């Protein structure tokens, strides 16, 4: 499926800018629950779709923002390649644009890099309705400011993504998932200790009473490391990691607010009530519970990290960790530099952005 709606989208944005009409940029509606409550007139971009170029030997794929994430993943898999940051889709309708705008990465993130790390270029419509292109389809490019990576995680508030170029890599030849019962302290010590050794780690998790570790690489390297680490082998490892990534794992069931704490990975277990799940070698920790947001944010900040109200709770309040006044002022100026009329997903990230 291939369709070019660039001109239509740009015209919509120009018209909205002239009228100062806020726009709610909508892709596959798979992550409408993420960020603060959307407002504004709906701007559909899911129709702007198609893989524009993919040459496995160049390790680059370029696709329109409305292209289904699943289509990209399947196309890459046919050539034995993948998106190394293993993004969650949160639904079959997820698009490339939404994936990049949310900037979410999967279980392999601390070992393979983030969504932002893999962006090489982007074509956007800024808040003036101008079509702009930054970066490109090459691995190294320092011409001009790195605006394409700036788009990652901006929730569409700096520009409507038209197409994105991503670095891709070969799928490792072999994976093994190991399981071992332990307490959270030992799990964190193990994850951080191993990450400092030449062990082909590709994902780590502590689910409450077990540490689960994935190794990826050549068959010999993986088998060798598996022997060294010990523990039991999990038969359906791929399924476990996919369920974890998509929040289908039993931990994520229920309607209580879900908090995501991003922390320096070696941070000891945080003393807050609720159910915890640790990922990313300790860098990403989920907290399921009715805890006062003020306490959660303070605990995350004290540890040198930040907390996001990922799902549920009050979506009209502050969802992301509040910024220091000087930082907020700078980010507001940056928002104005791209979107002077403040029409692109206003307030989705922070009030005033």
């Amino acid at each position: 499926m291939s369709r070019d709606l660039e001109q239509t989208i740009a015209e919509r944005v120009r018209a909205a800018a002239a009228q100062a009409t806020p726009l709610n940029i909508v892709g596959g509606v798979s992550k409408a629950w993420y960020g603060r409550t959307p407002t504004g007139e709906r701007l559909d971009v899911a129709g702007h779709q198609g893989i524009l170029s993919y040459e496995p030997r160049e390790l680059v794929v370029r696709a329109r923002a409305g292209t289904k994430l699943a289509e990209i993943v399947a196309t890459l898999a046919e050539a034995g390649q993948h998106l190394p940051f293993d993004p969650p889709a949160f639904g079959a309708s997820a698009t490339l644009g939404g994936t990049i705008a949310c900037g979410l990465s999967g279980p392999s993130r601390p070992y393979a890099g983030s969504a932002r790390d893999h962006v090489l270029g982007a074509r956007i419509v800024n808040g003036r309705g101008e079509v702009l292109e930054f970066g490109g389809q090459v691995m190294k490019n320092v011409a001009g400011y790195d605006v394409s990576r700036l788009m990652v995680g901006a929730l569409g508030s700096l520009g409507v993504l038209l197409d994105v170029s991503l670095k891709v890599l070969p799928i490792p030849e072999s994976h093994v998932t190991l399981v071992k019962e332990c307490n959270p302290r030992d799990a964190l010590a193990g994850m951080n200790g191993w990450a400092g050794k030449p062990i082909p780690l590709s994902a780590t998790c502590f689910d409450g009473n077990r540490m689960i570790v994935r190794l990826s690489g050549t068959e010999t390297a993986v088998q060798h490391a598996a022997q060294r680490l010990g523990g039991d082998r999990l038969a359906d490892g791929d399924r476990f990691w996919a369920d974890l990534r998509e929040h289908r794992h039993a931990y994520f069931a229920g309607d209580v607010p879900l908090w995501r704490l991003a922390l320096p990975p070696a941070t000891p277990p945080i003393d807050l009530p609720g159910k915890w799940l640790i990922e990313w070698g300790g860098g990403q920790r989920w907290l399921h519970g009715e805890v006062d947001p003020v306490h959660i944010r303070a605990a995350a900040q004290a540890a040198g990290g930040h907390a996001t109200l990922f799902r549920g709770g009050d979506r009209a309040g502050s969802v992301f960790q509040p910024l220091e006044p000087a930082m907020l002022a700078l980010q507001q100026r940056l928002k104005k530099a791209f979107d002077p009329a403040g029409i692109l997903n206003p307030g989705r990230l922070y009030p005033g952005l």
Partner: protein
Amino acid sequence: MTTTDALAVRRNELVRGLLDILPADSVLHQAEALRPYECDGLSAYRRLPMAVALPGTVEQVRAIMRLCHRLKIPVVPRGAGTGLSGGALPIADGLLLSLAKLKSILDLDPVSRSARVQPGVRNLAISQAAAPFGLYYAPDPSSQIACTIGGNVAENSGGVHCLKYGLTVHNLLALQVVTAEGDLLTIGSEAPDAPGYDLMALMTGSEGLLGIVVEVTVRLLPLPERAQVVLAAFDDSAKAAAAVGEIIAAGIIPAGLEMMDRLAIQAAEAFVHAGYPVGAEAILLCELDGTNDEVSELILRVRQLLMRCGATEVRTARDEAERQRFWAGRKAAFPAVGRLSPDYYCMDGTIPRRRLAEVLGRIRELSEEYGLAVANVFHAGDGNLHPLILYDANQPGELERTEQFGARILQACVDAGGTITGEHGVGVEKIDAMCGQFAAPELAQFHAVKAAFDPDGLLNPGKAVPTLHRCAEFGAMHVHRGELKFPDLPRF
């Protein structure tokens, strides 16, 4: 008052202000003391600043920025001065701010695998400090013994291991930045995915135009258990280029994958005696790293692939000493070429790998047209090409011819779907080439970004992003595909 007098008044005002902040030996303003700062690694451009300040603390940097903001004096930051695009070229009515005295490693945490360092710390010094813990800092630009981490952040420096381990931007956790107004900002943290906009991405590679980096926290990686390098010789550079594609297609991501052409091989061999096959048209250096078994297996597969691609010779380094020798030739390629000719001019285009043979052919044609020899060194794994044009600056007009030749190489890279700079930055050198890379609305967006950080335009002005007027003038000279690049702008 004449311009010279006005400059003298401003200089006095600046120096007086600086002496309130810094000890006298950290403020340079006499011509002979300024001389060492007149250029960076791109010595074709030279200029003296009004003064040089050498702060030793972050508070001093902040005070200097507040002073310059009050006096509206432009500031050019400088690390080790090894940059190759003139990014640290002084401004005649500006201050040169050297970060060289901020050179402490503040903290190295082997458990969380990070190092917090000041901007004047040398790239290699970080890896040396981390080595006892079995860790290292991955980006390794060839100048790593001298270049500083602050400069690496400003340029988003690469190195020979980028394809597997990424650029500077992929290996940073946090920055402390002093703004044009003298405020201190923290960007990023040791926790992943900082809230709000990804200013780390914006700051990295911004060539000192958005803020002064005063502290850098880098990510450290475990040293691989083993690294091994294979050298393959080819009688045709197109075959070498094809071999690069075959290695990637086989699902192998080498730690480093470098290519050198005949002239570069000969120059490097004469200089460091690396044991390169001097009769070859091209060589590939392919480094594989990982666990011991993994490397043994990959070496075998890569050797077979290279033979199948028509390599005339494939050699595996027998020991660590030979591996170091193979790399020494590559890392010394620039100075080695420098011995062949009074001057050389290093280009830094990036292209999609599949267009390599074609772009090399174009460079050969241009070389004949201009009557100037070119040696090619290529980060083949990531498509970053370094043609080195040999010339003699003492021959009237030869520098200008060389620059024209260089500009046409960059245009060939852009036309091939690539970019004018992979890792050296735009600086002053490629400012006109930016007009070919970007159209007016993108350049205007860059200027708007700059204004969000630095509304008075005091940080390294005139570098990295050309004004629209400059492009209008430049575009009038270089009509691309029969179209004017900036049709809407007034012309002179």
